[in-house]
């Protein structure tokens, strides 16, 4: 049966026998390098197998390394993201600290430059209702604060203390509808009263129609209200209009950005007017 199969497949047998003898010949014939052809060919083939195996292993290792590296990279990426987030937070903290330091430095400079005695306070709260423009500071009667004490910032006037408690105080901002302060035009010395509008603008009232007021004039406190010391910046004239009556309609843009306030100074020294009032009483 097997012999019959062999006979039916004589071609394969022929090729096998021929191949075997070629191998036999190759084992005896030296190549140009002096190495037997069989050894050379076998080594060459085996080297190719080794090269392929090495390439396969290298690919697998590379792939595995890439996978592991990718996983490590992912973990590293997450770690770096976390570090970056931390660094950004720290940067913000440092920036805030720097801003606060700058702000405090400005406050300190303001305090040193002014003749009034002040206490620095940090804003810890805002108004409970949008119709009221107030804020809460972290200093109260324990720190010497009393009602109607002026609250200022490096940029200008902020408001006045309305409700002090032991360790905190409510400050009415100058832009509140019920707030007002004596003012004058720094250039022309024209006097008037600054009144809050409830928004980010002030209204300068009681300025004579003949008064020399132009847009851009600096408005400062006049000190006649007995609350705000004289000469503190309120803002600049934004618009001047003729009104039907005796006075001009003047809009003032406050010097203080009330939305970005963080620290303020509370003026402990009473203004000369208030001092005079006290003496009169």
């Amino acid at each position, binding site marked *: 049966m097997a012999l019959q199969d*062999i*006979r039916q497949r*004589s071609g394969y*047998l*022929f090729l096998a*026998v*021929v191949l075997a*003898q*070629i191998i*036999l*010949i190759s084992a*005896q*014939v030296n190549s140009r390098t002096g190495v037997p052809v069989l050894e050379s060919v076998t080594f060459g083939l085996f080297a190719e197998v080794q090269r392929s195996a090495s390439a396969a292993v290298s690919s697998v290792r590379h792939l595995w390394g890439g996978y592991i590296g990718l996983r490590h990279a992912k973990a590293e990426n997450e770690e770096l993201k976390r570090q970056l987030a931390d660094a950004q937070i720290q940067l913000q903290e440092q920036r805030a600290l720097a801003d606060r330091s700058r702000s405090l430095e400005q406050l300190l400079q303001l305090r040193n430059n002014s003749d009034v005695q002040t206490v620095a306070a940090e804003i810890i709260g805002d108004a409970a209702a949008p119709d009221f423009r107030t804020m809460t500071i972290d200093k109260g009667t324990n720190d010497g604060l009393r009602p109607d004490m002026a609250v200022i910032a490096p940029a200008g006037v902020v408001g006045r203390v309305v409700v002090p408690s032991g360790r905190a105080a409510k400050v009415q901002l100058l832009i509140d509808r019920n707030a007002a302060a004596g003012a004058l035009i720094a250039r022309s010395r024209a006097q008037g009263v600054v009144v809050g509008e409830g928004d980010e603008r002030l209204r300068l009232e009681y300025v004579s129609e003949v008064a020399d007021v132009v847009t851009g004039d600096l408005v400062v406190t006049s000190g006649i209200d007995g609350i705000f010391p004289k000469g503190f910046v309120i803002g600049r004239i934004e618009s001047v209009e003729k009104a039907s009556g005796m006075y001009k309609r003047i809009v003032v843009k406050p010097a203080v950005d009330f939305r970005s306030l963080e620290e303020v100074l509370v003026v402990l020294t009473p203004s000369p007017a208030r001092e005079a009032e006290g003496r009169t009483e």
Partner: protein
Amino acid sequence: MRAAAVIAAVAIALALQTTLARFLVRGVVGVDLVLVVVVYVALMAGSVSGLLTGAVAGLMQDIVTRVPSSIIGIGGLAKTIVGFLAGVVGTQFIVAQPLPRFVVFFSATVLHAVIFMGLYVLLDLRHFGTPVAAVGGQALGNALVGVVAFQVAELLPGAVERRRAQRSQFRR
């Protein structure tokens, strides 16, 4: 049984070749008795028997004729190819007459020489000059021996039978 007979024939051919080689090589006509046996077996038994006989006989011949510059396997390869092709010819064509057999033996010898010498030349192991006359002579010799062998093998059984019949008539 047939394989044993083939091996025996190859062995005898090798023995004769080695013992008669000095006469044959120095003579005008060279004969490769082993090749004759291979072609004979191929024509008689087919390509598989031919290639197996060629492989075995060629390897044995290579081993026996081993010299420093020779390669074991070249003769085997040549005889394997020749045995296979001779077997194919024997199965595809009617090779029952002396002339076709002569052509087959002659062609097989030329092919064998081409492969054998070609491989040696190709491997730069041995140079044969211009072997046309030698190859032609060997092909002629192999063809003659082969045809005679066929005739003898075919006629021998009948002659023996006739001889026996004549002897039996004398006794009566």
